[in-house]
């Protein structure tokens, strides 16, 4: 480590003002502070600081996403094997297939996003910020497995530039960057991004799997099937082999869906990590689920064949689609969410309500979590404003009562 430290100290002057490699200062800074905690000592105010910093916070979120990522790999392989009509499911082959299927997406998302961040940091003369570490991992997890790479690149670039950098970078954005990327894909390429093809990997990768999908297989996600359901009977969702998906299946997550969103179990493991370390806010997570459960119960009580999704029982509503993932990893983004305690309850509750509301009563959009969060991102400052005003009024009243 000492040798590395010495080497960094040796090459550092080249990156400073007037050095040959000054154009890469932000890149060097980024790597240096990544490798070694900066030696900057405090110059004003407190003389000691907590060991926690923004790098660690972001890395904890990435760690919390790992169960979803690993499960997503297995599931990607599993769904492909189902689709080609296989009868045996060798674990390591499935994992390897899933790994190879998602790897390019992760690489593209990070290269494009971090590339833009490095350039912007250099241009603004700022330190590189680590917010994209999380975003770059979220984007592959919330996109369908077969999303073309160029679309991932375009969506990531759009989201990083127009949802984040134009507002001032990490900590200043109004909308969740990963969800903006997802929404961009959803609205810009609706033909590619919906339907039943994109959620299951179709190709052979390095000789693994088979490009011939068995005849008559539908690869639609449960919510996709529900949205297109017709008839008075409650919709029965099926997996690729045609057997019904039970509540337990939906909880474990071996069902078609966006790469990392299917397993509620893994999402809950991630939630446990986030809550234990105090990175995510329990108020938001809890109230999203409460709001979702409330709206799902209401729509279930008023079920009608006009809106087939209203015939799903409330528990399944919470387990299917991206709801749980959105509650744990998206709604809890502290920058775009409400920041006051009371505000967080309202914010989370409304996300839950809106997600199910959109899912059930707007048959055009099988999934509502993404739109619900983006919508509430826009309203979060208003919610906080009201909470802050009540604090101000309390202070005024206190002054007036006394006189």
């Amino acid at each position, binding site marked *: *480590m000492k040798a590395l430290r010495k080497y960094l100290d040796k090459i550092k002057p080249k990156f400073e003002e007037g050095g040959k490699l000054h154009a890469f200062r932000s890149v060097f800074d980024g790597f240096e502070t990544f490798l070694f905690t*900066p030696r900057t000592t405090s110059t004003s105010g407190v003389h*000691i*600081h907590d*060991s*926690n910093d923004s790098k660690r*916070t972001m890395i904890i979120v990435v760690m919390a996403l790992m169960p979803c990522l690993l499960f997503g790999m297995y599931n990607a392989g599993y769904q492909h094997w189902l689709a080609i009509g296989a009868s045996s499911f060798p674990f390591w082959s499935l994992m390897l297939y899933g790994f190879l299927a998602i790897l390019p997406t992760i690489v593209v998302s990070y290269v494009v996003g971090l590339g833009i961040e490095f350039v912007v940091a250099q241009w603004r003369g700022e330190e590189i910020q680590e*917010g994209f570490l999380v975003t770059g991992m979220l984007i592959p997890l919330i996109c369908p497995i077969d999303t073309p790479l160029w679309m991932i690149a375009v969506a990531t670039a759009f989201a990083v530039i127009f949802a984040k950098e134009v507002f001032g970078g990490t900590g200043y954005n109004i909308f969740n960057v990963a969800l903006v990327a997802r929404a961009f894909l959803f609205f810009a390429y609706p033909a590619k991004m919906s339907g039943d093809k994109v959620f299951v990997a179709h190709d052979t990768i390095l000789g693994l799997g088979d490009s011939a999908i068995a005849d008559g297989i539908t690869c639609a996600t449960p919510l996709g099937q529900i949205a297109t359901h017709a008839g008075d009977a409650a919709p029965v969702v099926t997996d690729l082999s045609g057997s019904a998906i039970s509540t337990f299946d939906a909880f474990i997550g071996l069902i078609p869906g966006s790469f990392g969103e299917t397993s509620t179990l893994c999402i809950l493991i991630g939630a446990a990590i986030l809550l234990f370390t105090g990175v995510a806010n329990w108020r938001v997570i809890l109230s999203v689920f409460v709001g979702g459960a409330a709206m799902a119960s209401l729509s279930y009580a008023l079920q009608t064949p006009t809106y087939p999704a209203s015939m799903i029982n409330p528990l399944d509503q919470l387990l299917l689609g991206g709801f749980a993932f959105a509650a744990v990893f998206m709604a809890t983004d502290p920058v775009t969410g409400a920041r006051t305690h009371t505000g967080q309850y309202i914010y989370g509750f409304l996300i839950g309500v809106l997600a199910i509301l959109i899912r059930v009563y707007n048959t055009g959009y099988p999934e509502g979590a993404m739109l619900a969060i983006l919508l509430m991102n826009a309203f979060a400052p208003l919610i906080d404003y009201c909470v802050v005003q009540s604090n101000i009024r309390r202070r005024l009243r*206190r002054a007036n009562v*006394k006189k």
Partner: protein
Amino acid sequence: MNKSIRIKKGLDLRLVGGIDSGAPRSVYTPKVLAVVPDDFRGFVAKLEVKEGDSVKAGDPVMRDKSHEEVKLTSPVSGRVSAIVRGARRKIERVVIEADGNNEAITFDVKSASNAEGLRSLLAASGLWACLRQRPYDIIPNPDATLRDIFVTGFDSAPLAPELSAGIDAQHARSGAKALTLLTDGNVYICQRASSAINFDGIDRVVAVDVEGPHPAGNVGVQIANVKPVNKDEIVMTLDVVTLARIGQLLATGRVPYSTTVALTGSEVATPQLIDTIIGADLAPMLEGKLSDTPHKRIISGNVLTGWKVEPDGFLRFPYRHITVIPEGDDVADFLGWASLSPKKMSVNRSFPGHFLFRKRFAPDARILGGKRAMIMSGEYDRVFPMDILPEYLLKAIISRNIEQMEQLGIYEVAPEDFALAEYVDSSKLELQKIVEEGLEYLRKELN
């Protein structure tokens, strides 16, 4: 039955190098001392002496530009050896060489039996400068009407000494009684029940028992939980040591300049108490008492709000605490953000050290991260026991929005109230500096 309040939010940092009951005690008689006007926020210094003048203890060395009766006085008899000026000829300190004669001014205390007399006695003796007022946390305006007076009886900051141990309870009582002259309200004295001085039977002196972690000892927190400051109200604040000094001045006519300093911190060989004089020079006082670590930071005060002083510096207000910690600018901390070392101190549960409830830590002065925008929400709230939304107040200050600052409670806070928030902040923002500059801006704009 005393009134009592319980502070729930806050944090007691467990640091190495505290004073325990068996700590040694020594005496240091300084040869060189300094009066530093920066210690007294709101004081704009005008000189009363020239280099080479001889002064007695209690003689004025500086006066305040806007209230000329408010003086800073010499703590010893001796000769003014240097007047050190900084940028734009700002007076940084007046250095006095002690002559060892112990000559002191005796003030006429008979006139202090009414408010006017007490005010001018305190102003002339230099003790007025040790008082503060809310709003702004500056030296109180002698012309202001004070709603109440708040005295904090303990220092809850990390490694801080017990305040009530070294003071004469009788002086504290007579000081409290005298201060009731200055207000039509009450003199609130907030103390730990375990080390409380008895103030029973003095009219308009209200003792309050305070429970809870730091910042329970911050007078601003006590005010907020007892009787918050509203707009257009002025409250005077002080600590119990100053209260006892006032009592002693009234009893003897002489200003007590002696002080007991707690020498603490991980880089102190043996944490100890040192009896000395306020403004004493530190180099000889600390000689042989510190560890061999090459890069050390000497702080006059505690690790949250103290002054960083050079090794040849002086004891700074409030003259009771020195902490020495490693500077840390020579540490190579590989992948520090991923570390699971139990030596790392944090409020975050991802650090194993968080669960070692009996462990004491020896943090250095690094900020341990990079400056960021406010990312995490609710971090400040956890250590901010007032009915104030710290994040929104800070944002109002940064955007210099006076109306919002007022609405969100700027008049109730001092920079020190944000010290813990600054410590826990994962975005490493300089909150105390932001608040201090905000208060100064507000004061300039409104006056």
